C-alpha cells in the first residue's frame, strides 16, 4: 500500500515542476499553528527576497517574464498538510523525523530555512528541468518566485503536488483569463476538458510565446483533426487536417500557424471564438465594424474605395470588384461568399462552391483565373470577366441583360 503511494507520488513527480522543500517557514510535521517557528517568513515572496542570487537566479533575470506579473488572490501554505494526502514528496516522506535533507535544521519542529533558493534545491534532484529553465519564455512563478508558488514541497491532495487542481490554481493569479472563460458567450472546450490549461500551455517554460506547448496551429490541429467535433450549438466543426490536406492554398494566418490571429482560445463573444466581429451570414449590409476581423490585417480600402489600382487586383481596369460585391447597403456579399476562410484549392483561397440558404446548397462559383484577371459564371451571374490591365472597365449592367444575368443568390 505504502509502495503504491510512493509510486503514485513519483508518477506525479516525474511530470511536475521542480519542487522541493521550501524555505524553513514551517515545521515539517506539525500544522502551522502548532509550529515553533524561530525564523518565520509569511510567504514565498518574502523568502525569495531574502535569498541570495544564484546562478539560476541570474539566468532568470536575463529573460523577461511574459507580461506584468499577475497577483495571486490567495496565498498557499508551503507547510506539510496534516491530513492524509495521496501525494507525498519522496524527499519529505523518506525521513519525517529529519528535515535536513533540504532544510538547515533536522528538527521537524524547527527545520529552519533552506539554503539558497528553492529552485536550486529542487534542481539538485530534478535535473530533468535544467533544459526547461533554459527555454526562452518562463512562467512568472518559475522566473520570479520559484516552484513553491504552485507546488507544495511536502505533500498535497493534488497530482504533481499542486496546491490546487487546474484550472483553479492558474486562475488564482490569472483573473483576466478567469473572467473571459466564465463570461464569454462562446466557450472553448479545451479549457474545461482533459488537462485543462495544460492542454495548451506549459506551466514552466516554452520557446513559444504565452508559454504555449507548440505554435498555435500545431496545438489546435491536435484536437481539430477529427470528424464529429461539435460546437455548443451542435454544429459540426471542420476537420482541419483533412481540409488542409485537400486544399493547398492557405489563408496567411494558417500558413504561418497562427490561428490566434483570428481566434481567441479562452472564450469569445463572437461566433467561432473570433477575436472580433465578422458577419456570420452570406449577405450583410456593408459596415466596416462588421469586418473588423478582416481589417486587422487587410486594408479597408479594398472594400471602401470604388476605384483603385493599388489595393486589389480583383478589379476591372480600376473598377474595384471587391467594392462592387461587398460594399452595399443591404445585400452585400460577405467575404466568405467567395473566399474560403482557411484554405482552398484555388489561388486567393477562392471557394469552389458556397453553401447557400437554409438547406446549404452548394452553389458553384466557377471561378477561372487568368494572368491578368479572371472570370466567374453561372451561379450568381452569367460569365463576367475582369482584367486589371484594361484601360477602361466593362460596365456589365449597361450591357443587354438576359434571364441568366439576373443577380442572385
Amino acid at each position, binding site marked *: 500500500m505504502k509502495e503504491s503511494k510512493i509510486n503514485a507520488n*513519483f508518477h506525479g*513527480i516525474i511530470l511536475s515542476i521542480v519542487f522541493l522543500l521550501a524555505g524553513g517557514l514551517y515545521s515539517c510535521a506539525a500544522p502551522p499553528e502548532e509550529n515553533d517557528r524561530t525564523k518565520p517568513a509569511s510567504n514565498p515572496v518574502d523568502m525569495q527576497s531574502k535569498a541570495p542570487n544564484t546562478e539560476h537566479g541570474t539566468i532568470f533575470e536575463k529573460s523577461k517574464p511574459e507580461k506584468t506579473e499577475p497577483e495571486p488572490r490567495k496565498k498557499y501554505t508551503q507547510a506539510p498538510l496534516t491530513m492524509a494526502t495521496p501525494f507525498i514528496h519522496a524527499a519529505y516522506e523518506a525521513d519525517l523525523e529529519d528535515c535536513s535533507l533540504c532544510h538547515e535544521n533536522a528538527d521537524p519542529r524547527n527545520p529552519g530555512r533552506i539554503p539558497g533558493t528553492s529552485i536550486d534545491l529542487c534542481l539538485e534532484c530534478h535535473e*530533468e528541468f535544467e533544459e526547461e529553465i533554459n527555454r*526562452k519564455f518562463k512562467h512568472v512563478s518559475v522566473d520570479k518566485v520559484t516552484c513553491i508558488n504552485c507546488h507544495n514541497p511536502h505533500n498535497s491532495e493534488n497530482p504533481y503536488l499542486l496546491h490546487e487542481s487546474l484550472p483553479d490554481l492558474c486562475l488564482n493569479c490569472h483573473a483576466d483569463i478567469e473572467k473571459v472563460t466564465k463570461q464569454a458567450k462562446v466557450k472553448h472546450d479545451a479549457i474545461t476538458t482533459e488537462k485543462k490549461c495544460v492542454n495548451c500551455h506549459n*506551466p514552466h517554460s516554452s520557446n513559444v510565446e504565452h508559454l504555449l*506547448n*507548440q505554435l498555435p496551429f500545431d496545438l489546435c490541429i491536435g484536437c481539430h483533426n477529427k470528424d464529429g467535433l461539435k460546437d455548443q450549438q451542435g454544429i459540426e466543426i471542420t476537420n482541419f487536417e483533412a481540409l488542409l490536406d485537400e486544399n493547398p492554398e492557405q489563408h496567411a494566418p494558417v500558413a*504561418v500557424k497562427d490561428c490566434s490571429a483570428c481566434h481567441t482560445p479562452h472564450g469569445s463573444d463572437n461566433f467561432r471564438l473570433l477575436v472580433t466581429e465578422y458577419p456570420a451570414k452570406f449577405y450583410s449590409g456593408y459596415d466596416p465594424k462588421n469586418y473588423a476581423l478582416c481589417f486587422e490585417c*487587410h*486594408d479597408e480600402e479594398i472594400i471602401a474605395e470604388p476605384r483603385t489600382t493599388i489595393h486589389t487586383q480583383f478589379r476591372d481596369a480600376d473598377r474595384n470588384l471587391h467594392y462592387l460585391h461587398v460594399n452595399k447597403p443591404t445585400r452585400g456579399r460577405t467575404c466568405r461568399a467567395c473566399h474560403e476562410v482557411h484554405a482552398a484549392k484555388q489561388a486567393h483561397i477562392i471557394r469552389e462552391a458556397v453553401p447557400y440558404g437554409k438547406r446549404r446548397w452548394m452553389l458553384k462559383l466557377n471561378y477561372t483565373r487568368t494572368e491578368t484577371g479572371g472570370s466567374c459564371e453561372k451561379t450568381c451571374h452569367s460569365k463576367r470577366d475582369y482584367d486589371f490591365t484594361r484601360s477602361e472597365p466593362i460596365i456589365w449592367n449597361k450591357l443587354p441583360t438576359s434571364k441568366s444575368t439576373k443577380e442572385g443568390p
Partner: protein
Amino acid sequence: MTCKVQLTVTRCGVFFFAVAVLWPTTLWTFSRAAIGTKIENVEMPTLDGGRHHLLGNAMANVFVFFKPGQEYSDITMKKMALCEKETADKSVHWVGIVSNRIPPAEVESAVKEAGITMPVLIDVDDALYGSLGVKLHPVVGITDQEHNLVNYQHFTKVNFSEVLLARIRHLLKEIDDQKLDKVLHPVVATTGGNGTKARIRLMLAKKFYKTGKYEIALTHLTTCLDDDPKLVAAHTLRGQILAAQGNYSEALEAFQIALELDPDNASAKEEIKACQERIPER
C-alpha cells in the same frame, strides 16, 4: 510486413506533404516581389520632413509596412521597437513605411507609443505599396546587403519577434540553418524534460548518501534500479554506499555490474581494485 512498410511510407509521405504544405513561406510574399527579387532602393520623404532611402548598406535591411490605429500594426510596432533595440549594435538598417493617407499626427502618435527609433518613410500615393504589391498590414521585408529580398514576414500574434530576430541573425550569419529552423519550428515544450523516475531516485539517493543516511539511500537506489536496471551511475553509487558500510563483497558485485554495463568506466575499475584489496582472502 508489407502493410507496415506501406504505412510507414504513407506516414512519411503525409509528413513531408504536411511540411511542404504548412510552411509555404515563399508563397506568402509581396504579391509583386517574390523572394530573391532585387528591391529598388527608392528615396522617400520621412515623417520628420527629411528624405531617407528604403534600404541601406547594412548586412540586413528591414522595412515594415504598418498602419497606425490598426491593432495588429500597433502590436507589431511595439515588438519592432524591441527588435530594433536588440540589434542596435549590429549591421541592420531599419525603416517603417506608412501610407500618406494616414494623417501625420496619427503616425507620430503611433511611433511615439510604439517607441521605435527607425526613420518612418511616407509612401506618397501608395507608390511603394503598389510596386511591391503590399496587401496586408503589418508586413516586414528583409533584404541582404545587395538588396535582394530574402524574407517576407507578416503578422503573427505568437513568436513574431522571435522569428524576425532569428531571420536577421541568420542573415548576419550569427546563427546557422539549424538554429533558424529551431525557431521557425519550435519543438513541443514538454514538461519534465527527458528525465526519468530512475534519475530522480538516483539524485535523491546521492543526497542521502552525502548526509550519511545509507539505508535510505539504498532504498531509493533499489527503486531506481527496478525502474532502470542499466543505469550505471546507480550501480556505482550502490557500490560506494555498500563499501562505505564495509560491505565490500556486495560493493564489488555492484561495481562489476557497472563495469559490465560500461567497460570504459574508469571509476568502477578503481573501485573494484579497492574492494578487492579490502576483501579478506577466503
